[in-house]
């Protein structure tokens, strides 16, 4: 899959133009808005750090989704997996840190979070392989359950009694994921970049990745070729959920140190369109995620300053998707015409 720059740049420019027109119609100055977003999300030092910090969980979720989507499995239960993994780290870390060094605490927490998220994906995987139930339905249902269950866990067993708002105990700032050099950026961004590159390598350069893609493109051909479709399906769910779970752990261990009840950033549904924009391509998704993180961070500041609602960022993403599809379609048409 080769990305010609024009095919990506043209939709981005079109989305920004149409998005600007919408802002203009709302009585806001689009140029001022965009300038502010870029200023706050990319050009200012603190904004840039924020952007990178925000990218870490998004990239881990994206890498999990790429594995699943390439294998033809629509894991839409990202948020449930993410939050339960986050609860696991948030509950465990403050307890472990009392007895263990911080590096060991972090490794154990990441491991447990991954395991919890994987466990949450077992039910959809089982239902799909055994009864052929559509995983879109089952993962969505599991995500509703997971979000509520995470809340219950924070409010009841893992609630910190010393705090007035329901939340878990807090991991001290000094024991969280290590900072990079002299910045506020935590090492989670390194973990997430490694994950994305690893996923990209596995999917494009290994037998396992090719097997997953065969299962994804034509399960009957996979069976015909003697692949164990059931086992590969379980593996796909586990890897996908595991990476998402690692995202949850990184967000807690790197940024918050605690988990509040009702905290749900709903990153999963935000990342899905990005993964589609990148056409499941590991390297391309890094670019889109960074762009999106800039829009998010810059948009949050801009919404306070200019009164443009925060979710306007989503409007831009939607426009981007539409124009990307449109450009793709026109490209396809002209190819066809050339052939005829």
């Amino acid at each position, binding site marked *: 899959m080769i990305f010609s720059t024009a095919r990506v740049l043209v939709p981005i420019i079109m989305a920004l133009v149409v998005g600007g027109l919408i802002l203009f119609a709302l009585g806001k100055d689009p140029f001022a808005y965009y300038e502010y977003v870029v200023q706050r999300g990319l050009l200012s030092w603190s904004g840039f750090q924020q952007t990178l910090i925000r990218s870490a969980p998004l990239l881990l979720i994206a890498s999990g989704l790429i594995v699943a989507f390439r294998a033809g499995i629509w894991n839409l239960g990202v948020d449930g997996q993410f939050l339960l993994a986050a609860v696991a780290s948030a509950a465990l870390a403050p307890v472990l840190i009392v007895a263990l060094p911080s590096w060991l605490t972090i490794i154990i927490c990441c491991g447990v979070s991954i395991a919890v998220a994987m466990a949450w994906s077992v039910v959809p995987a089982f239902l799909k392989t055994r009864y052929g139930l559509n995983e879109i339905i089952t993962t969505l249902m599991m995500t509703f359950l997971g979000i509520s269950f995470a809340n219950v866990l924070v409010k009841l067993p893992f609630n910190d009694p010393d705090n007035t708002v329901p939340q878990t105990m807090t991991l001290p700032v000094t024991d969280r994921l290590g900072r990079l050099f002299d910045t506020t950026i935590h090492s989670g961004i390194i973990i997430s970049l490694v994950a994305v590159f690893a996923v990209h390598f596995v999917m*494009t*350069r*290994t*037998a*396992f*990745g*090719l*097997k997953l*893609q*065969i299962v994804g*493109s*034509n399960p*009957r*051909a996979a*069976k*015909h*070729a*003697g*692949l*164990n479709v059931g086992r590969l399906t379980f593996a796909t769910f586990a890897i996908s959920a595991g990476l998402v779970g690692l995202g949850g752990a990184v967000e807690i261990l790197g940024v918050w140190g605690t988990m509040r009840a009702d905290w749900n950033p709903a990153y999963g549904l935000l990342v899905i369109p990005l993964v589609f924009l990148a056409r499941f391509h590991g390297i391309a998704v890094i670019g889109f995620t960074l762009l999106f993180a800039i829009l998010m961070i810059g948009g949050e500041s801009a919404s306070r300053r200019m009164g443009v609602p925060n979710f306007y960022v989503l409007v831009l993403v939607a426009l981007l998707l539409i124009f990307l599809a449109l450009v793709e379609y026109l490209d396809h048409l002209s190819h*066809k015409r050339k*052939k*005829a």
Partner: protein
Amino acid sequence: MNSAAGQTPAVSLHSITKRFPGVLANNDISLDIHAGEVHALLGENGAGKSTLISILAGMQQPDAGHIEIEGVRVKIHSPRESLRLQIGTVFQHVVLVHSLTVIENLMLGGAWWRIHDRKTALARLRDISELLGVKIEPDVPVGRLSLGQQQQVEIIRALWHGGKVLVLDEPTSMLTPQGVDELGALMRRLAGQGVAIVFITHKLREAYAFGDRISVLRQGKLVGDILPEHLDDMDEEQATNEIIQLMFKSAVHGAESAEAEIFLREGQERHKRGVINKSGPPVISLEHVSTRAEPGECALHDIGFSVMPGEVFGIAGVDGNGQKHLAEVIAGQRPVLSGCIKVSGELTTDADVPARRRLGVRYITDERLGEGTVGGHSVATNLVLKGIGAPPFWRFFVTIWQRIFRHAREIIVAHDVRTPSEHTPLARLSGGNIQKVLLAREISINASVVVFNKPTYGLDIHNTRLARDRIVKAAASGIATIVISTELDELLELSDRIGVIFNGEMSGIVENRAGAESEIGRLMTGAKAA
């Protein structure tokens, strides 16, 4: 029979031309179809027959030319319009809703604002069934009917809105020899009622046996007609020669005359082959094999046979009588309920696909794109599909794409696969070339048993010949070869022995010698071997 001669034709096509990217499917075809006649439309795969009838059925629009119905110029812009003009079409593949009953399927075309009138519909069904001389239960789900019965339902549906014209696209491809005769009688009866019948076939013999008039298509062109008065005076051999003349009169250069010869040879000449050594042990043997019945599939009951090295064992039978399960059980894709399978003396009943491949079992599926290949992936990937993770293309599970691509380039040259490159998505290739890729992948040096499931299905004459030559070559190299086919001619040409499968059971095994055909035909309907 010739009552229609001199009258206005029921349908006449005037200079129909249809162009698809890269192909001229119909090139200036003019054709008259008369009421009360069976008009046989003869031509090999890809001659443009299907395009012509999809134009009649309103599914395609001609680029040039026009259609007249009883002398009135019409435009058939939709399938609905075609039905309104009383043109009923029965397509090669059944297009019925399997979960609905017969009568529900027949009532599907009704106007949306009208309440289903079951009583009238049942009366109509009775009338048409009587006309056809068939008996169909109205309240049985279509999925439970045999393919022959489903075809009858299709014919009833085609005549539902009044049958002026009935178009049958390759209707004999899924029938037994007896079923073919019954269809012939049915067409005769309908023609006697004044229906104009277009009977499409690629088999010379059927065209002669059932047609009042024969038109021959070749490469999108109408190359000639044999008129009824002419046809009556000819015996089969004269007609055959005449048709060959029409089809290949331009056969001045080598390639075409070779094709003419292939066409003539089709189903007539048995392959002469060396004597098979039957003293040794068989390469593969099945004993009392049964499978579990899944909804809509035909399971196996107590199947047993064995195949010697170098032997071609044909499996005859009407489609849907357990052929698919048989092939999958041998390949290891489907679990066996009871019984056992031995390959080279080793018990392999529970071995999975990779384990059987190591023993040399290969399976060329009939669903080339459905399960044989991954259409969106490259030709190169598809060539190594059954060996993912194995050396020399993988080292420590890391893919060595260079080697895979080089391997693909070699195969493409060696097997004359027509593809722009080894990176081209496989689905872009033609059926014949996809089959070449499959054959190249499956038949390798260490193959010992090869199952061919409908190896020439949907291929044109040239590629059919190539595929059959490949089968013969495989057997000659000592491979135990199992050919599953619904084309009896094909099996008679290739096989040493032919097993007949009916309703999941082996109703008999016949040595392929003179007179085998009638015995096989009898077994195909379920009569047990004497």
